[in-house]
């Protein structure tokens, strides 16, 4: 076996070699299982943790370029050691717990923030045969696990005993629960089309990436995941201008760094899901499969960053009404149409793309018109006449009552 072949199937080969080595050492079956499991956990954790610090650096450099600045370039060549400098600086800071805070929960939240994204990576296939556990209901597992982030964020906000943190936590939970619904329904189309809930099965079913077959489902899930990972256009939970960093107001130093890294870990996990479900995962010519997955993840991450550089923060009511009045109906329509297509043409012929792309564009335009009707005219401030009182100033109606 030459080196290239070994590298192409790196993950299964490494696993096979490790298993052979452990079995050769005379361990029992249970011990072998344990060692293999721990090695898998270590590999996945290392992969994510090695990916995240360069991402923070990359984002800072890119956002600097978008704002016609240079960005961090003083530490090391091109500033590449900036994440290390940041980590060292944050680790040396004092640990402060507010006197009214729930100490245990306050400590627990930043350590648990990494849990949901790592758990998602347990079912993401990096290569054919290179998956930590090939769950036959991996999609359901992902949906269940990704909601756990809301609990961690709420724990952080609740235990801080701070009104702003509580507000941020409430926003995070409301946002996450709202966007779970359309995003999950968008995932149904993928499951229906692939005929499988296992992520490996879904990747194998994608001869053409599903982003071409189901652009509408991709858009809905992309926006949903964007909001769920609390990134810029929808980072209401940590809006520094309104609620001073929201749920992590009371966190400083390394705990704060945990939240920051956790946010990036969430983004990496979301990009892995999108790359697997819509961009045909590890499939691709020439390069080894895991490199294809990482490339596709990077494309999605750069898209997230690009959107963050462009779009300003959305208002709370706009975020919520967008989920319930726009994305949810669209995702239901999408499920209906895709269901019909799968029933009528189960082999998913390529000409479905020619139907689905115009359908996505048309449904977005039509529902945007309807959305305007549902929303009604924007609230006006009207002069309210109070009988018996002659006021020299116009008394504004409270917003939202005048329709």
């Amino acid at each position, binding site marked *: 076996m030459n080196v290239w072949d070994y590298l192409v199937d790196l993950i299964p080969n490494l696993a096979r070699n490790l298993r052979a080595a452990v079995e050769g050492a005379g361990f029992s079956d249970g011990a072998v299982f344990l060692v293999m499991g721990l090695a898998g956990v270590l590999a996945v954790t290392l992969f994510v943790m090695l990916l995240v610090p360069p991402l923070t650096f990359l984002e800072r450099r890119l956002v600097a370029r978008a704002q*016609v600045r240079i960005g961090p370039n003083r530490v090391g060549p091109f500033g590449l050691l900036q994440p290390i400098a940041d980590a060292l600086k944050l680790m040396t800071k004092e640990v402060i717990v507010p006197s009214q805070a729930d100490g245990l929960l306050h400590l627990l939240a930043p350590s648990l923030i990494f849990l949901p994204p790592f758990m998602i990576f347990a079912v993401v296939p990096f290569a054919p045969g290179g998956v930590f556990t090939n769950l036959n209901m991996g999609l359901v597992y992902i949906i269940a696990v990704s909601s756990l982030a809301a609990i961690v964020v709420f724990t952080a906000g609740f235990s801080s005993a701070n009104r702003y943190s509580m507000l941020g936590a409430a926003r995070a939970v409301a946002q996450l629960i709202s966007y779970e619904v359309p995003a999950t329904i968008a995932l149904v189309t993928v499951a229906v089309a692939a005929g499988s809930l296992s992520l490996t099965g879904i990747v194998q079913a994608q001869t053409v990436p599903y982003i071409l077959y189901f652009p509408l489902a991709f858009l809905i899930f992309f926006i949903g995941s964007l909001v769920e990972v609390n990134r810029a256009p929808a980072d209401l939970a940590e809006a520094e201008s309104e609620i001073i960093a929201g749920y992590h107001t009371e966190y400083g130093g390394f705990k704060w760094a945990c939240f920051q890294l956790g946010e990036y870990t969430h983004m990496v996990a979301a990009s892995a899901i999108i790359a697997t479900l819509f961009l045909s995962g590890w499939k691709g010519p020439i390069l080894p499969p895991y490199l294809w997955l990482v490339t596709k993840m990077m494309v999605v991450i750069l898209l997230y960053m690009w959107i963050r550089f462009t*779009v300003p923060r959305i208002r709370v009511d706009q975020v919520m009404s967008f989920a319930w009045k726009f994305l949810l109906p669209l995702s239901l329509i999408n499920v209906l149409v895709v269901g019909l297509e799968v029933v009528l043409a189960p082999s998913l012929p390529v000409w479905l793309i020619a139907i689905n792309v115009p359908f996505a564009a048309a449904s977005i335009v039509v529902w945007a018109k309807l959305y305007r009707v549902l929303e009604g005219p924007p609230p006006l401030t009207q002069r309210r006449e109070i009988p018996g009182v002659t006021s020299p100033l116009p008394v504004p109606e409270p917003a939202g009552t005048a329709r």
Partner: protein
Amino acid sequence: MYGSGILKGMSLVLQTMLLKKPFTVQYPEKRIEPPRRFRGASFVWYEDRCTGCATCAKACPQGNIQIITTEGQFNQYFVDRFDIDHLRCMFCGLCVEACPYDALFMGPDFENASYSRASLVIGKKHLNAAAPTRIPSSYFHPELDRIDISSGRPVPEIRKAEQEKNQDIGWASR
């Protein structure tokens, strides 16, 4: 409408990221020439013009300027001390405006950090040593915009040379 605005903005951001040169000037290595009428530190003072009238000291809102004079033989004053305290100076320029003999000018400096307080009280010796080399700010003296008194060259020519020097840091070209 229908997200086209967002797409437009995103394309603009991409163009900025790919095409525009960073505006930042990396300060300690490269620096921007301050504007001609900059009200900066390092006052420029010409002893031969100064009559010791102390109008500047009276004009100073903080009382930063200390002048001690001795009376001379032919109805004139000799300036013994002329101290400007940079620590409390807010660079308002009122002393320059007050000077009836055009002896005091603002300077182009902005780096005031020092290890001792005493070194920030600029005295007569320092001012005299610096006067021939410093270019006075044309604050309150717009006539200096045209002629540079230190070199005697017309200012537009100097400005052009400065601009050419700064081309590589992308400041003057914008």
